[in-house]
């Protein structure tokens, strides 16, 4: 069977499973549509959260970023997992006890203010829409590489599949497809990693392999990697970063942002009890951890594999790295996987010194004494995971599995985001503000229509990505960290924060964060409208626009506290509401009233 046929079989098979689940789990009520009926087991929910959370960025891009940045990219590993501690301790159990359908609904009720609810709706839609475009684009890449269709056709196929199971099944359909998608993506991610770990370190468990000895050289893997990359002028893989303040704030922004993203919080509304919300956060992190513990191993091993493919003399024990680096492979002898990926443009070669050999090294270093006139091989971070099975010479079915896994990661996250957007529109905007008298049937129809519109918009933006698509991390996490997380946390842990304080806090956190991002990245991400170049020398106190969400969050807390303390106390019934949210007793299933 050809590789193409295998890929079609794996991707088509996984899609058939998702559609089968959707038909089985059709939503009959708004409760089914928004919270899957409220009876999801915590382990099931944990798995669904895992798929919901792990996006195309986690599956396709993260290991590549770690491979090129080494220790510095640990920010993503800690930031995207540490947020679950905040969720489990500070938000999820209390929001579950509150027992409503959406995040803006809690903010609106707790701060007895429609304006607060609308601010939350806008934050939610901007953050989720930015995020969903990235997923659609990721799905497009997977389609064009593995199914030999162009990205647009691939996107439309993906959109139809998502449309089918999310519009039909709502949260109920999405929950059970996400469980299936989790299994597909984790199997696809770990199988190649196990084989590569065995090959390089004789240890079948990749996270252990990372800290084991490299079999070919007998040295510890990371020590070997450090020697190999420094011989080519790169920084040591494990080198400490200089700007510790920025690393701390970036990690903090990702953690707070993770905890404040509505599509993740919503998943906690689906479990029967408050205690289940706590357990499902733990299970979610176990399932997420399986991938996040494997990723750094994949990263370092793929980096080592890449370098030793180009410089075979570096593969085993090396007496003199200077000599080993003098002998890169000839371009004509490059392995097949480089040829395949050259066709996608994600690997490119430019023979700058016309010697027919591939020089791969840090362009900032000067190796003119070796006759090198610049780095000749550009490798996109995004290919490492997708090319992994080919680099390790694994059989064709593993390649098919990776294709299905990448699509599962992108589609499961897209579905969760689309549900968050559609419920904000049908429940918070239409039922909450425009037409409160809408019937349940009418609301369910509105939810399905807004979901369909959201899919069409996301697909259009996926095909024609706007400037802000590449800024998912800055924009979505910045907004969630600076506006939503502090409002939710203060709503639970303080009885004193009133409507004025909350709105002032959310707006100041949001505006401050957006302005800081726009100053460096361009106003509304329009190229060349930035006021200052986006380089470390220009950042205030060395804080990058990616890390500013944490500062925005602190500002939000401070403003909300100050404004509340000079204005009146919240009314008694609101203080009673806060009180009731704090104790698990008497939590019904998520209700609509």
């Amino acid at each position, binding site marked *: 069977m050809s590789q193409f046929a295998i890929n079609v079989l794996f991707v088509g098979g996984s899609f058939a499973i998702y559609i089968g689940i959707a038909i089985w789990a059709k939503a009959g009520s708004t409760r089914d549509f928004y919270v899957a009926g409220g009876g999801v087991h915590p382990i099931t929910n944990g798995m669904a959260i895992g798929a919901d959370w792990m996006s195309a960025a986690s599956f396709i891009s993260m290991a590549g970023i770690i491979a090129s940045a080494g220790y510095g990219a640990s920010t993503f590993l800690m930031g995207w997992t*540490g947020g679950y501690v905040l969720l489990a301790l500070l938000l999820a159990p209390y929001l579950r006890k509150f027992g409503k359908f959406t995040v803006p609904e809690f903010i609106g009720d707790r701060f007895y203010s429609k304006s607060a609810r609308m601010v939350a709706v806008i934050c939610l839609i901007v953050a989720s829409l930015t995020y969903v475009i990235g997923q659609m684009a990721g799905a497009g890449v997977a389609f064009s590489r593995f199914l030999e269709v162009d990205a647009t056709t691939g996107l439309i196929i993906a959109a139809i599949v998502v449309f089918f199971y999310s519009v039909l099944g709502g949260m109920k359909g999405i929950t059970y497809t996400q469980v299936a998608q989790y299994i597909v993506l984790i199997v696809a991610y770990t199988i190649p990693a196990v084989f590569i770990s065995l090959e390089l370190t004789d240890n079948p468990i990749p996270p252990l392999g990372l800290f084991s000895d490299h079999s070919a050289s007998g040295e510890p893997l990371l020590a070997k990697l*450090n020697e190999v990359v420094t011989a080519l002028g790169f920084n040591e893989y494990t080198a400490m970063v200089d700007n510790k303040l920025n690393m701390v704030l970036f990690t903090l922004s990702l953690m707070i942002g993770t905890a404040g993203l509505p599509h993740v919080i919503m998943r906690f509304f689906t479990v029967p009890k408050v205690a289940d919300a706590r357990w499902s956060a733990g299970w979610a992190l176990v399932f997420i951890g399986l991938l996040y513990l494997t990723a750094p191993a994949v990263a370092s091993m793929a980096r080592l594999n890449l370098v030793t493919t180009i410089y075979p003399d570096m593969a085993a024990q090396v007496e003199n790295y200077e000599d080993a680096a003098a002998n890169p492979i000839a371009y004509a002898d490059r392995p097949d996987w480089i040829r395949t990926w050259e066709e996608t443009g994600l690997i490119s070669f430019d023979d700058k010194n016309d010697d027919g050999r591939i020089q791969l090294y840090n362009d900032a270093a000067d190796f003119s004494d070796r006759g090198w006139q610049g780095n000749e091989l550009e490798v996109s971070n995004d290919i490492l995971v997708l090319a992994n099975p080919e680099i390790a010479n694994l059989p064709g079915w593993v390649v098919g599995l990776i294709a299905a896994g990448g699509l599962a990661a992108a589609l499961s996250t897209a579905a969760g985001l689309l549900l968050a957007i559609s419920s904000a529109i049908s429940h918070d905007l239409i039922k909450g503000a425009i037409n409160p008298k809408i019937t349940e049937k009418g609301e369910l129809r509105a939810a399905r229509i807004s979901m369909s519109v959201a899919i069409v918009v996301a697909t259009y933006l996926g095909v024609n990505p706007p400037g802000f698509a590449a800024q998912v991390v800055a924009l979505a996490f910045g907004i969630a960290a600076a506006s939503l997380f502090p409002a939710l946390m203060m709503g639970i842990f303080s009885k004193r924060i009133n409507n004025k304080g909350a709105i002032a806090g959310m707006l100041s956190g949001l505006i401050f964060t957006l302005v800081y991002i726009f100053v460096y990245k361009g106003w509304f991400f329009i190229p060349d409208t930035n006021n200052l170049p986006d380089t470390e020398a220009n950042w205030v106190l060395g804080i990058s626009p990616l890390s500013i969400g944490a500062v925005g969050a602190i500002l939000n807390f401070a403003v909300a506290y100050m404004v509340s303390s000079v204005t009146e106390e919240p009314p008694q019934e609101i203080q009673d509401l806060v009180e009731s949210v704090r104790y698990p007793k008497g939590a019904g299933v998520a209700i609509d009233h």
Partner: protein
Amino acid sequence: MADDKSKAAAYWKANLRLITGCLIVWALVSYGCAILLRPLLAGIPVGGTDLGFWFAQQGSILAFIGLIFFYAWKMNRLDKKFGLGE
């Protein structure tokens, strides 16, 4: 009623103490051991590199998982002790 109220207040206080403790550990493993205190831990070798690197790419994630289960387990006991569970 007054008894219920003081019981609820005690429950909330115990919860806040538990949260504070867990968040101290949370910050210590990530911002502490993995970033700010890494130079201090540089002398402790782990698989070809140092303990700080291990915390940054593995240890903190394991600690986060442990923390959430620990908190969920402790809270279940608190819910029962104060009779505020479901």
